[in-house]
């Protein structure tokens, strides 16, 4: 049997009795690896000393130049997810996971070569572009498969996978530091070797995911589960073709729902350390701020599983109502916690905010399933991830510029974030309105039954 036929959909059908609980670990194998992207910053400082080893020389790379590696990766995550979503959907999860593993591991190998010859453009191409394609393909590869295996708990299933993307950094950060310490010598920082080792580890890990992933046989349903015959108010039993989804107001409303939720979260995510120190001067040290950021990352990861699972019971629309309503209150409350010097309340507010930031990512695939059906949900999710790319630009820019404007106009640093918080609260009110406007997709957008049937 050739490799391409081994990877196709026909050969990925689960045999009778195959446990559906093997699919979340298969998805996690991919998401835990690509989640490394969040920990790429651990390489930044060592990469500024590739030539000088103990300190940077004039020919060494600057931090500002290195920042583009991560930005390119996230940009190409959005691009590849949007462009290749349909291919991922129609080719099946195994082919997509295999391709993602090749791109992701290949990105590390090329980046190792870039370090070796000290050419940053090679790293931009390796990690930024090729790795970015691995990120995008890997991110959406298990989504529709999980939803098909868990029609009774789609939120929980996709939440588990997307939690892995948040958790990948927890493994990658200490692993990278440990590997660099092993490969470093007095004349060498060990980044290239670490990239090679991580590429090999990630390739093997992702291939395990590709090996155990299966799609359910046509007509399969979980034991004891009766699919609803009639569509509920906001959960369709029909399917919408990927590019027809773009013609519906629902797609763009959910696009804004995700974009606004992520803009608010990502804006303060990057500034959490500085913000905590500046809002509580002389009380929060840089060391405490670092631990605060670590804790927030845990809430970001936990929120992905918690909120996505809760959405199966609360409904997707209600879950987002909670994100926006509670988020508005919490963002508006943060300046008061600073004024009152109440650090525990500040930490609690942030913990809930970050849990809802992660929850927004993890709940959206199930929201799309409810609106557009399962047939092209992975591809539609890929298109929706452009909202993430957009938010990744808007959020930090908003926070940085508002803070800068306040500081240059004489506002004390401790109060410089107040306006930002109120702006974020307003963004969440806009998100609340978008969510409120969501209604079921009009039936003229539904696929005909014979078109919608899964081809294997």
């Amino acid at each position, binding site marked *: 049997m050739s490799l391409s036929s081994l990877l196709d959909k026909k050969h990925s059908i689960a045999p009778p*009795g*195959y*446990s559906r*609980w*093997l699919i979340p*670990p*298969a998805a*996690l*194998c991919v998401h*835990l690896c690509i989640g490394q992207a969040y920990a790429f910053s651990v390489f930044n400082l060592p990469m500024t000393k590739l030539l000088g080893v103990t300190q940077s020389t004039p020919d060494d790379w600057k931090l500002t130049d290195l920042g583009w590696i991560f930005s390119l990766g996230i940009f190409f995550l959005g691009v590849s997810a949007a462009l290749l979503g349909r291919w991922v959907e129609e080719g099946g999860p195994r082919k997509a996971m295999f391709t993602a593993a090749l791109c992701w591991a290949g990105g590390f190998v090329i980046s190792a070569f870039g370090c070796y010859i000290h050419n940053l453009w090679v790293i931009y191409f390796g990690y930024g572009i090729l790795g970015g394609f691995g990120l995008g393909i890997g991110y959406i590869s298990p989504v529709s498969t999980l939803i098909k295996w868990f029609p009774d708990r789609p939120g929980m299933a996709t939440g588990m996978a997307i939690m*892995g993307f948040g*958790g990948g*950094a*927890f*493994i*990658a*950060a*200490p692993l990278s530091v440990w590997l660099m310490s092993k490969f470093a010598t007095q004349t060498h920082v060990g980044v290239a070797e670490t990239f090679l080792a991580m590429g090999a580890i990630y390739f093997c890990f992702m291939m*395990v995911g590709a090996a*155990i992933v299966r799609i359910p046989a046509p007509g399969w349903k979980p034991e004891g589960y009766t699919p609803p015959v009639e569509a509920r108010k906001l959960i369709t039993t029909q399917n919408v073709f990927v590019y027809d989804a773009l013609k519906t107001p629902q797609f763009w409303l959910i696009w804004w729902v995700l974009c606004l939720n992520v803009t608010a979260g990502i804006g303060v995510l990057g500034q959490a350390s500085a913000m905590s120190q500046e809002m509580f001067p002389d009380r929060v040290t840089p*060391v*405490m701020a*670092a*631990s*605060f950021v*670590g*804790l927030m*990352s*845990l809430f970001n*990861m936990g929120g992905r599983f918690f909120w996505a699972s809760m959405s199966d019971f609360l409904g997707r629309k209600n879950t987002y109502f909670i994100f926006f309503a509670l988020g508005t209150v919490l963002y508006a409350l943060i300046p008061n916690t600073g004024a009152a010097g109440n650090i525990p309340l500040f930490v609690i507010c942030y913990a809930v905010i970050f849990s809802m930031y992660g929850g927004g990512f993890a709940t959206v695939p199930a929201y799309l399933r409810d609106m557009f059906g399962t047939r092209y949900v992975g591809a539609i999710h890929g298109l929706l991830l452009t909202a993430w790319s957009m938010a990744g630009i808007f959020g930090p820019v908003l926070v940085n510029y508002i803070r800068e404007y306040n500081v240059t106009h004489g506002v004390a640093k401790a109060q410089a974030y107040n306006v930002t918080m109120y702006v974020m609260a307003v963004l969440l009110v806009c998100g609340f309105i978008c969510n409120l406007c969501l209604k079921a997709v009009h039936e003229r957008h539904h696929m005909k039954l014979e078109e919608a049937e899964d081809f294997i």
Partner: protein
Amino acid sequence: MNNAASGNGLKLVLAWGFVGIPLAWGVIQTLINALKLFQ
């Protein structure tokens, strides 16, 4: 049927261990660092 069930059980333990152990290790490392820094 029992063989199939126990086979699935072993696969489940292996698969979840494969992803769960590294994730738990990473989370514990992060928690230890966070708690140490708050002391």
